[in-house]
C-alpha cells in the first residue's frame, strides 16, 4: 500500500504536468463539469449524512448529547467495542504478517487457496459469517452441546462477538503487505544474511522497517472495521443491553426505540472514529510518500 499511496502522490504531480501541456490539456468546461459531478456526488452522499449525524446529535442540546454518551448501556457498548478491537487487531497483525510472509517468501502447496481464503471475508456477506458461528457454537450447533456441558458461552456472549470481529477484519493487514513484500524482492534480505544477520535480525532490522507504513495502514483500517462492524456481530450478539451490545448495535436499538437524539449522539462517536481514522490514514500516506522519495 505504501507503494500505492506513493503512487497517489506521484499522480498529483503527473496531473499538474498533463495540465501544463497544451496537447493534453482539456477545455475549461470539461474540467469543471467533471469536477462538479464528482464534488456534488461527494457532497450529497458523504458530506451531507456526516453533517446530519452531528446536527441531529446536538439537536436537543449538549446536555442530552452528553447524557446519551455516559448512560451505563452506552458506556458498556463502548467498552465492548474497544475490547473487540483490542483483541482482534493484534490477532490480525500477527496473522497478517505471517500470511503475507508465507505467501511471498515460501513455496508451498495450497498457496492459491490461502490467498483466496484471505479474501473470503471481503466477498461473503457479514451476516453469513455470523450465521456460520451460530451454526457451529450455538446450543443446537455442532459443538454447542459440548460447550454447554463445560459452561462456556460463545454465542450471545463476548467471545462470539470477538470471533465475528476477527473474521471480518482478517484481510486488511495481509492485503496491505502482500503486494509490497512482492515488489520489494529478496535482495536486501540476502545482503543482510551475507553480512551475518540471523533470521529474526533480518526480519526485525530489514524486512519490518521496509513495510512499517503499510503495516500501520492495515492496522488502522482493520481497527476501523472492527469498531464499526454491524452485520456479523448483530447475528451472534443477541442484543443483550449492557452486556453484548457494541456501539453500532446500540445505535440501532436506540433508533428503533425512537430515541433519535441519543441514537445520533452515539452514532457521532462512530463518525468521529471514522474522521480520526481518515486523518491518521492521510498522515501515514504522507509519511509513506516521504519515505519513498
Amino acid at each position, binding site marked *: 500500500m505504501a507503494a500505492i499511496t506513493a503512487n497517489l502522490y506521484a499522480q498529483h504531480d503527473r496531473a499538474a504536468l498533463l495540465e501544463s501541456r497544451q496537447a493534453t490539456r482539456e477545455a475549461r468546461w470539461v474540467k469543471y463539469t467533471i469536477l462538479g459531478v464528482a464534488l456534488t456526488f461527494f457532497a450529497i452522499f458523504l458530506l451531507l449524512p456526516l453533517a446530519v449525524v452531528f446536527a441531529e446529535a446536538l439537536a436537543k442540546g449538549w446536555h442530552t448529547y452528553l447524557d446519551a454518551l455516559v448512560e451505563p448501556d452506552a458506556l458498556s457498548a463502548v467498552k465492548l467495542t474497544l475490547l473487540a478491537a483490542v483483541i482482534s487487531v493484534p490477532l490480525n497483525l500477527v496473522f497478517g504478517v505471517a500470511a503475507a510472509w508465507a505467501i511471498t517468501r515460501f513455496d508451498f502447496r495450497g498457496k492459491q487457496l490461502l490467498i483466496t481464503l484471505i479474501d473470503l471475508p471481503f466477498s461473503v456477506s457479514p451476516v453469513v459469517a455470523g450465521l456460520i458461528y451460530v451454526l457451529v457454537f450455538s446450543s443446537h450447533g455442532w459443538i454447542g452441546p459440548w460447550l454447554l456441558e463445560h459452561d462456556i458461552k460463545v454465542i450471545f456472549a463476548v467471545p462470539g462477538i470477538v470471533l465475528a470481529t476477527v473474521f471480518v477484519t482478517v484481510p486488511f493487514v495481509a492485503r496491505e503487505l502482500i503486494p509490497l513484500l512482492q515488489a520489494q524482492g529478496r*535482495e*536486501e534480505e*540476502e*545482503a*543482510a*544474511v*551475507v*553480512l*551475518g*544477520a*540471523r533470521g529474526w*535480525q533480518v526480519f526485525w*532490522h*530489514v524486512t519490518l*522497517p*521496509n513495510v512499517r507504513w503499510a503495516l500501520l495502514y492495515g492496522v488502522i483500517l482493520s481497527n476501523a472495521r472492527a469498531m464499526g462492524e454491524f452485520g456479523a456481530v448483530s447475528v451472534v450478539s443477541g442484543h443483550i443491553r449492557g452486556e453484548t451490545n457494541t456501539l453500532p448495535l446500540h445505535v440501532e436499538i436506540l433508533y428503533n426505540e425512537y430515541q433519535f437524539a441519543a441514537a445520533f449522539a452515539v452514532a457521532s462517536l462512530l463518525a468521529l472514529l471514522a474522521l480520526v481514522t481518515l486523518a491518521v490514514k492521510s498522515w501515514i500516506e504522507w509519511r509513506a510518500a516521504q*519515505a*519513498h*522519495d
Partner: protein
Amino acid sequence: MSIQVQNIHKAFGDFIALDNLTLDFPSGELVALLGPSGCGKTTLLRVIAGLEQADSGRVLLDGDDASDTHVRERQVGFVFQHYALFRHMTVFDNVAFGLRMKPRSIRPSEAEIKRKVHELLQLVQLDWLADRFPAQLSGGQRQRIALARALAVEPRVLLLDEPFGALDAKVRKELRRWLRRLHDELHITSIFVTHDQEEALEVADRVVLMNHGRVEQIGSPAEVYQQPATPFVYGFLGAANRFEGHSSAGGIAIGNATLTAEQNGQHGEVIAFVRPHELDIVRHEFGHGIPARISRVLTLGALTRVELEGRDDVAGQHFDVELPASHPLAGSLIAGEPVRLQPRSVRVFANPETAGAA
C-alpha cells in the same frame, strides 16, 4: 584466501546453469567471470557465496569444504548489481550493519564500530555522505557504499555480481579503475561477474570465459584476447568477422572464393575469424578474396569503419572493416561499390557443427 570449485552441477528445471564445473581461484587475485547472459556466471558466484545450493559438487574455501556452511558463516563479502542497500538506514548504519549483527560476545563497541565505519567510508572516499540515505545518492556512490558495507565484516573473499551493470558508461569506467586500485591496496581474493568483455579485460588479473554452464577458457586478459581457445571466445572477445568454409592444402575456400591461400594445419570444414582491423579492402570486383559490396562508410575520429555485405557465395552476410582514417582508401570508398576482402591474419577453428567434435 583461495577458492576452489569442484564438479559443481546446478540445474533449474530443465535448464542446466552449471555443467560439472571445476575451477581454481588462487589467493589474492582479481578474477573476472565473463560470458553472455544465461551462461551461469551469476549462479556460480551465488553458489560460492552460499546464496544458492549446488545440486552436486563442492566449494572449498581456503582448502576447507564449505559446501555445508551457511552463508553467514562463510565470511564472504557480496556486492549486488542493484546495490541492495538498506533504504531505511543512513549510509553510516548501512556500513555498520554487519558489525552490529555480530553475536554480543564478539561484537565491537559502538565507538569501535564508529571508528571502523569512518575508516571504510574514507577508503571509498565518501565519508562526507555518512548521514545521507541511499535514495539521496547517485548510482556510483551507492555501489561504493555497498562495497564498504561488504568490507566492514572483513570478508575472506569479495564477490561482485555485475557491480557496474546498472551504471552509465562514464561512471562505469571510473569505478572500474577505482576497483582495480582498491584491489591493489587490499589484495583480497575477488571474483566479479560481468558480461562486458572490455570491463573484464581492463580490470581483472585473470579472465574465466563461460558459456552454457561450462568454462571455455581461463587466462590473463592478453592470453584470452590474443590466443582464444575456442570459436566462442574469439567471437565473444572483440569484434570479429566470421567465415565458414573448407580448409585444404590450397588454403581456405568459401564457395568458389578463396579466403586465404595460406596453410593452417586444419583440414575439412572450418570456421575462420578475422578482426575488422586485419581485413583489407581490395578494389577489384573479381580475383582473390571474398566478394563483398560496401554498404556504409563511417569516419569517427582516427578510425574509418566500413560496413559491407557479401556477394555471390557469401550473399546475406555482413562484414566490418576498420581502417585508419589516414589510409588512402578511407576517403574514396563509396557505398554500393563492389570490392574484395583479403585478410592479413586469420584464426581458424574446426567447425564443431559439421565436424562433430569441438
